[in-house]
């Protein structure tokens, strides 16, 4: 008999609580580092760090809360494809911002 999705026990209540704790801690770290002046290291460092934390939180939500970790290859493909599309949106938007004549719409 083929293995089904429900055959897995996943990570149980303690595991889900651990993931929840990771999300809360991630949110707290995001709040704290927002007060650090990381932009003095390089421009945009604050934003980059906030996005990195958000990406980590999103990854654990997808893997554990949404059960992607135990899902079939097609679900993995769908998840990866959505990130690829996100990459398209960012890359093609940024090609405008990185090559735009400076001063346009600057406040």
């Amino acid at each position, binding site marked *: 008999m083929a293995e089904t999705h429900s055959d897995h026990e996943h990570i149980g209540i303690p595991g889900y609580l651990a993931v929840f704790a990771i999300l809360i801690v991630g949110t707290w770290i995001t709040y704290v580092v927002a007060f650090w002046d990381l932009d003095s290291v390089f421009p945009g460092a604050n934003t980059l760090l906030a996005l990195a934390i958000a990406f980590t939180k999103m990854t654990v939500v997808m893997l554990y809360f949404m059960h992607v970790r135990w899902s079939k290859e*097609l679900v993995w493909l769908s998840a990866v*494809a*959505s990130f690829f*599309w996100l990459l*398209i*949106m960012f890359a*093609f*938007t940024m*090609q*405008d*911002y*990185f*090559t*735009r*004549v400076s001063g*346009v*719409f*600057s*406040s």
Partner: protein
Amino acid sequence: MQNADGFNPSLMREPKDSYLTNGYSLKSWLLTKDHKRIALMYLISISVFFFMGGLYAAAIRLELLTPGSDLLQTATYNKAFTQHGILMIFFFLIPSIPATLGNFLLPLMIGAKDLALPRINLLSLYLYWIGGILTLYALMQGGVDTGWTFYTPYSTTFSNSYVMAVGLGIFINGFSSILTGLNFIVTIHTMRAPGMTWFRLPLFVWAHYATSLVMILGTPVVAITILLLAIERVVKVGIFDPAIGGDPILFQHLFWFYSHPAVYIMILPGMGVISEVISSFSRKKIFGYEFIAFSSIAIAVFGFLVWGHHMFVSGQSIYAGLVFSFLTMVVAVPSAIKVFNWTATMYKGSISYDTPMLYAIGFLGLFLVGGLTGLFLGSVGLTVHLTDTYFVVAHFHYVMVGGQVIAYLAGIHFWWPKMTGKMYSEFWGKVSAMLVFVGFNLTFFPQFILGYQGMPRRYASYPAEFQVLNIFSTAGASVLGVGLLMPVVYLTHSIFAGKPAGDNPWMLPGLEWRTQSPPPTLNFDEQPVVTWEAYEFGEESGLDLEEARRAAGRPSVV
């Protein structure tokens, strides 16, 4: 044995059990999980929105009959074209074919009892209704004047109209679209009948698969964009308004990341309909099945790479404009593949000019004009002259109305006998198809000339030298309006007084034609097993099509 009318009396029977007879109470409809009933409720709903959007179009065309701002005040005119666009795009064009014909036919075409997620299907209908009612409430309260594109900073800062309520309506409606797309993808992957391989799927199903990909990948972005707009409008966080640190072009990037692929949500299902109709009424296997199937996927993918061609004169960088212009030319290739293959399918085919085929032939010409003028607008230099003129209005109406609406009408006429079990008046069908074609061209072709001559869109008044062409356009709109209203009359009449259509009135091999008309609640009496290729009109299909032809009272094909 045929009677004097040329119809077989054995077809006069009422189906013993069909989805239409499975309960008559309001509850049996509102709580149904039957994809066919949900499709019919969508059909009625989108028709209501279509005719409401049509009323705004009529007001716009009447206003433009004269150069002055006579019928509508300028502020009212702004609301009229905005609300015409919002109702037509979000509440008619996007759900039109997927939610009605797609919902009804997809399980039938793949040999399934229903969609994979029937409750989700009903939920998507309710979300559509909630979003629609909220939008209508906003329109009755005073409406919105931002244009259907909600460009910032006007929509976030200056407009005093009901931007938030309409935005919320569209936001909710977007989830309906996402759930429909999700349902279709899961159904196509998991519910195909034995023997129904990917390359035996009707091209209508391939088109809906590609459409569903766009719905799922694109719609969340416009939802987020509307949410960001709301955050800036209500909380004054600087996202799009340059006065508080935002960038209005960012709104356009995010908006068009969805809204250009949304064009393909509208046209891809229409292309699926046209593939079915042209092959069926040419009595010929579709030319280049794989090319048409993969061109749908290619359109869905490349459609996400071209949104910047809406922004050539927005202040977007010249480099980005060049890249988007090049990619716009690329996306024309898979569309052209389809047009060539449909034409090749008709070549040496046994063509019959029934109403659906008349619409399909109309589609070929009108979509060709719409597509080719899109290349004009995709060219960076030329578009500087044409942006925000009536050339753009004419172009997208040739694609959206000349393409999608005509395909929708072709599909409704094609599958109406299956949906209702009744045949409509072929005479009035043909008259309607001709009126729509003539009226449409008379309405929108003059707008190409007006736009090229420099008449800007979205103004209630215009210089007197443009009046003659505007009169042509308004006259054409009245012909188009009559042509579009006629099917409402004769299709409704056919439900009560139409001749029984029989199970397979067009003598076709597809699975949906191998069950009764209208279909039973579970679609098939027994699980179909597919042993034939798509679009087999010979003995390989396992159907005695000559017998079916005789049963339907049609002459034999030599």
